C-alpha cells in the first residue's frame, strides 16, 4: 500500500482548499451576474479529486464531467485560465469557447470536462489505449457520477478497458443524486463498485469524504494500472453540498434531507483536524494556506476580469486544424 506521506497530505489539503475556494468564489461571481452560462459546484466532493490526483503526473491523463472544476484544479490547471474561461475571456483555457463544462488542457493531461454525462468514459479508455500503444507508462483516470454509471458509454468504455487491460482507473463519484433523481430510483444495485464484476476487474468502495482512504484506494488502483494489470472501478461515496447547479436549492427532491448528515463530514474540516493531530499542520499554517489561496484566487479573478473578450473572428477559428 502506498502510504500517505506528509508532503502528499499537505498537497491534498491545500488542493481541497483551492477547489473549495474556487467554487465559493465562482458561485459568488455567478450570482453577482458576472459569469454567463451555468455552473455545477464540486463543493463537498473535494477529497475525491484531491486524493486521486495526488498520484498523477502531468503526463497522466484525466477525463472529467460537467462538475469538473475540482478535477481540473487537482490536475494542475491554474485558476487564471479557469476563471478567464468562466468569464468567457480570450485568455481562458478554451479561449472563451468552452466554458465551465469544457475546460481542458492537453499539456497538463486534462482531456476535458464534458457536457455529456458518461461521454468521457470511452475517451478515457482510448487515451489509455493510446498511452499503451506508445509504450508510455502513464495512466488515465476517468471521473464520473453515479448517474453516469447508467449510460451505455460507461458500459462500453469500461468493457473495452477491461478487455484490453488498459492502464485506466474509473472513479465513480457517487453523490447519491443524478440531477434530481435519487440513486435508489435510477439503479437497483447497492454499490456501483459491484458493476466491476461485469468486466472482470476489481471494484472498490471507498469513503469519498476521507482523503486518506481515497488516496490509498486510488494509489493501489493506479499502481495496478501502471503495472499493466488493467483497470479498476473505484466508487467513492460522497455528497455534493449544494444543488445540482448553482441556483438549484435541492429541496424538490430531498437533497436537503440527505445533505445534513454529510456536512458534518466535510473533508476540509475533518482532514484539517487529522493533520493537526498528526502535527503536520497547525492553525497558523492552515490560515496561511487559506490566505495564500485567497490571494491567488483574487489575483486570478482580477486577471480574468481584465482579460479581453475574444474577437468576433475567433468564433470561426479552432473548428478545424486545416481547411
Amino acid at each position, binding site marked *: 500500500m502506498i502510504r500517505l506521506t506528509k508532503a502528499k497530505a499537505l498537497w491534498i489539503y491545500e488542493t481541497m482548499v483551492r477547489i473549495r475556494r474556487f467554487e465559493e468564489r465562482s458561485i459568488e461571481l455567478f450570482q453577482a451576474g458576472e459569469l454567463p452560462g451555468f455552473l455545477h459546484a464540486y463543493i463537498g466532493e473535494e477529497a475525491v479529486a484531491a486524493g486521486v490526483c495526488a498520484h498523477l503526473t502531468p503526463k497522466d491523463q484525466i477525463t472529467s464531467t460537467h462538475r469538473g472544476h475540482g478535477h481540473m484544479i487537482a490536475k494542475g490547471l491554474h485558476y487564471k485560465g479557469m476563471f478567464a474561461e468562466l468569464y468567457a475571456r480570450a485568455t481562458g483555457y478554451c479561449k472563451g469557447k468552452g466554458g465551465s463544462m469544457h475546460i481542458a488542457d492537453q499539456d497538463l493531461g486534462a482531456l476535458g470536462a464534458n*457536457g*455529456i454525462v458518461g461521454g468521457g468514459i470511452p475517451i478515457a479508455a482510448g487515451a489509455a489505449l493510446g498511452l499503451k500503444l506508445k509504450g508510455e507508462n502513464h495512466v488515465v483516470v476517468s471521473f464520473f457520477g453515479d448517474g453516469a454509471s447508467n449510460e451505455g458509454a460507461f458500459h462500453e468504455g469500461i468493457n473495452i478497458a477491461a478487455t484490453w487491460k488498459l492502464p485506466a482507473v474509473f472513479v465513480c463519484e457517487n453523490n447519491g443524486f443524478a440531477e434530481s*433523481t435519487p440513486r435508489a430510483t435510477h439503479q437497483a444495485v447497492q454499490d456501483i463498485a459491484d458493476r466491476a464484476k461485469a468486466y472482470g476487474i476489481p471494484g472498490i468502495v471507498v469513503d469519498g469524504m476521507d482523503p486518506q482512504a481515497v488516496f490509498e484506494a486510488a494509489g493501489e488502483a493506479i499502481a495496478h494500472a501502471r503495472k499493466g494489470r488493467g483497470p479498476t472501478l473505484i466508487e467513492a461515496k460522497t455528497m455534493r453540498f449544494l444543488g445540482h447547479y448553482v441556483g438549484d436549492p435541492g429541496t424538490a427532491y430531498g437533497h436537503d434531507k440527505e445533505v445534513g448528515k454529510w456536512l458534518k463530514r466535510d473533508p476540509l474540516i475533518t482532514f484539517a483536524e487529522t493533520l493537526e493531530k498528526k502535527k503536520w499542520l497547525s492553525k497558523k499554517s492552515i490560515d496561511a494556506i487559506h490566505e495564500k489561496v485567497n490571494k491567488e484566487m483574487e489575483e486570478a479573478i482580477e486577471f480574468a476580469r481584465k482579460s479581453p473578450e475574444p474577437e468576433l473572428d475567433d468564433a470561426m477559428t479552432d473548428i478545424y486544424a486545416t481547411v
Partner: protein
Amino acid sequence: MREILYREAIIEALDEEMARDDSVFLLGEDIAEFGGSYKTTVGLLDKYGAERVRNTPISEQGIIGAALGAALVGMRPVAELMYIDFSAVAMDQIVNQVAKVRYMFGGKANTSLVIRTQGGAGRSSAAQHAQSLEAWFVHVPGLKVVMPSSARDAKGLLKASIRDDDPVFFIEHKLLYLEKGAVPEEEEIIPIGVAEVKREGGDLTIVATSSMVGKSLAAAEELEKEGVSCEIIDPRTLFPLDTETILASIRKTGRLLITHEAVQRCGWGAEIAALAAKDAFDYLDAPIERVCAKETPVPFSPKLESYVIPGKDDVIAGVRGMLETV
C-alpha cells in the same frame, strides 16, 4: 385571449392528454419531482403519480427504447430528451428502431409515441447544449418533425402529436419557454402538416422556424418602415411539410429567404431552397438567401454565441441584400 408561457402551454397539453387518455404517460430524466430541466412537466407528478410521470436513469437509448416498447404493446408514451444534443446518444433507437419498425414489419406496429426535446442557443450553454439538429430527423423517413414557435402552436401541436399514430419528434426551444403568447382556453388541436402565415406581405417570403419566427417578425416590422413588405411563413411541422403554402407565397413574392438557428450547411433550409429552385423556379426573381447559424460549434462566450446565431439584424441584412440584387 389569455396569455400563458410557452412552457405552460406544454404542461397544459400534456395534462389534458393524460387526463383524456390513460395510455398516455411520460418518461424522461428529472421530469418528476423536479418538473423537468425547463419546468415543462411541473405539477404532473402530483396529478398523475409516479407510474405515469416516470423519472428515468440517465440512459437516453433506454428511454427511447422503453418508449418504443411501450408503444408497441399499445401505450402512448411521451419521452423527454432533456436537450436535443442528447438525441445523439439515442440516435440508434430513434432512427433505426422508432422510425423504421412500422415499415420493416410491413405495417404491423403501433408506434404512437412522441419524443419531446428542446434545442437552440442563447444561454451560453456551449457546444453540447445548444445545437439545432432538426435536419437530421427530417432526413429520416418514418419520423414526423414538429417545431413550434409560439405557445399556441406548442400546445395545439403537442396535443396533435400525442394523438398521432406515428412517432413525432417534437422540438421546443429553450429561449421560447419563457415567452408568453395567447392560447385559447378551449381545446385546440393544431393539425400536423399545416404551415401558418405569421405575417402577410408582398415583397418577399421569409420561411422561418422556431426562435427565428419571432426574430423575423421583428425584422419585418423594421423593414416595413423602409417600405419593404415581408411575408413570414412558419411551417410549424418540418415533416410533413406544407409545401403548398410555401410555394404559393414564393409565387406571389418572387423572393425567398429562409432562416433557422441550425448551422447552414445541410440544414433544413437547404431543403426549402431546393424545393423552391425546383417547384417555383419560374417565379424566383432573386437568388435564394439563407440566414442561419455560422458553421461552427456553438461557442460559450455570449459575445461569440450571439455572433454565430442569427438575429433580427441578420434577417434584416439578408432581406436588404436580396432587394439590392435586383
